[in-house]
């Protein structure tokens, strides 16, 4: 299995999407003026969310719904609610972070990174490993519960307060609405609908993902450059260890539900990834005392690159070995 992981990691590291991420990271660290305008970055993310949601919906239309969909969403919710507690306990042991900062970071690690999920689906497609289309719905379901766990952990220390309208904002945030909306459209229109727009959402997908990861590399590199010294060794160690713990939990849940090899790998990726879009915005509203430099640098500067380069190959290889799939 180690050889499989190394082969997959080598393939992954030399893929265009990872090299684009590395280019962005290196350019930002070298203080290049290369940048992707905010509006362009948002347009790229809208395209990716729409494409991944639509393809997931079309896949469900082709293969039909089964009880595993509900079970998968259920275990996704359990993971999202539960992982922040594991992360919080680890952070209190491994780092000197305050309760508030630890709770805010923990919320990020229960939620998910949709870009990591998209990159993982791209790796699976490249290796002709199929997965359940409804994993998109699981991803959407896992965005928000971790925020509640993080706020509860913070409130135990007497900080954090319920912010009117926060839950509505979280549940109706743009990425969840677009992901679930395009998933529904894909499920309604099925293979015929996909065929009609495949020249838009299938062929250009890899190229758009490359540009988006270039931008993510730039943002991550800028964060690392400007916030160096914010994270201690313990926190960096947490940023690498926690995804592995999350992936292990995802593996168990994926097997429990009876997902395919690709589905198990995606469940591992979802549980291993950390949010850097939805949760930071929620934390700024509900937990402003927490230091955004800590959770953003950890999530985007440590865990995201780890998952993208080494994590995904590990999760895919483990899923293949455990399920016996190829």
């Amino acid at each position, binding site marked *: 299995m180690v050889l499989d992981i190394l082969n997959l990691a080598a393939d992954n590291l030399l893929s265009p999407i990872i090299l684009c991420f590395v280019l962005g990271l290196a350019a930002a660290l070298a203080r290049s003026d290369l940048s992707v*305008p*905010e509006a362009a*970055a948002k347009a*790229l993310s809208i395209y990716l969310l729409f494409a991944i949601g639509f393809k997931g919906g079309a896949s469900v239309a082709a293969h039909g719904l089964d009880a595993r969909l509900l079970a998968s969403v259920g275990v996704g919710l359990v993971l999202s609610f539960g992982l922040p507690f594991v992360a919080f306990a680890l952070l209190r042991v491994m780092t000197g972070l305050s309760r508030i900062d630890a709770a805010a970071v923990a919320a990020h690690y229960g939620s998910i990174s949709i870009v990591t999920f998209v990159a993982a689906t791209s790796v699976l497609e490249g290796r002709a490993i199929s997965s359940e289309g409804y994993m998109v719905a699981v991803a959407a379901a896992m965005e928000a519960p971790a925020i509640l766990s993080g706020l509860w952990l913070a409130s135990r220390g007497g900080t954090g307060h319920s912010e009117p309208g926060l839950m509505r904002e979280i549940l109706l945030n743009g990425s969840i609405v677009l992901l679930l909306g395009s998933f529904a459209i894909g499920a309604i229109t099925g293979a015929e609908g996909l065929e009609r727009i495949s020249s838009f959402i299938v062929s250009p997908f890899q190229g758009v993902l490359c540009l988006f990861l270039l931008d*993510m590399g730039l943002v991550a590199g800028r964060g690392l450059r400007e916030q160096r010294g914010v994270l201690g060794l313990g926190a960096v160690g947490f940023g690498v260890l926690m995804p592995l713990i999350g992936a292990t939990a995802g593996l168990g849940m994926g097997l429990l539900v009876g997902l395919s090899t690709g589905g198990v790998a995606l469940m591992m990726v979802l549980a291993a990834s950390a949010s*850097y879009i*939805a949760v930071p*915005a929620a934390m*700024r509203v509900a937990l402003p005392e927490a230091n955004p430099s800590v959770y953003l640098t950890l999530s985007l500067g440590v865990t995201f690159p780890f998952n993208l380069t080494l994590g995904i190959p590990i999760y895919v290889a483990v899923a293949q070995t455990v399920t016996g799939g190829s």
Partner: protein
Amino acid sequence: MQTHTAKRVEIVIEAPLERRLTDALVKAGVTGYTVLPVLGGSGRSGQWTREGQVGRSGMVAVICLIRPDRLDGLLEAAFGVVERHIGVVSITDCEVLRAERF
């Protein structure tokens, strides 16, 4: 041309708080405001830039022009939102042409 004294209040605040701030201002009787994107900056919380961001992140500037006698009400409303968050509130004297609009 006849001009009238007014106060220009500029509140730079985190983007996720924008709606809460503008709602509080409207509740406090402010009849108009302007929201501007902020490209980037640096302060006690470190450097940041809007470039490449995809979430509701970064800062926005909310600008209000009001009659001087309404300043305290506006500041109380704004401070209720801004107090716990990263941001800057500044007030400058200015002149407007049509006093009845403020």
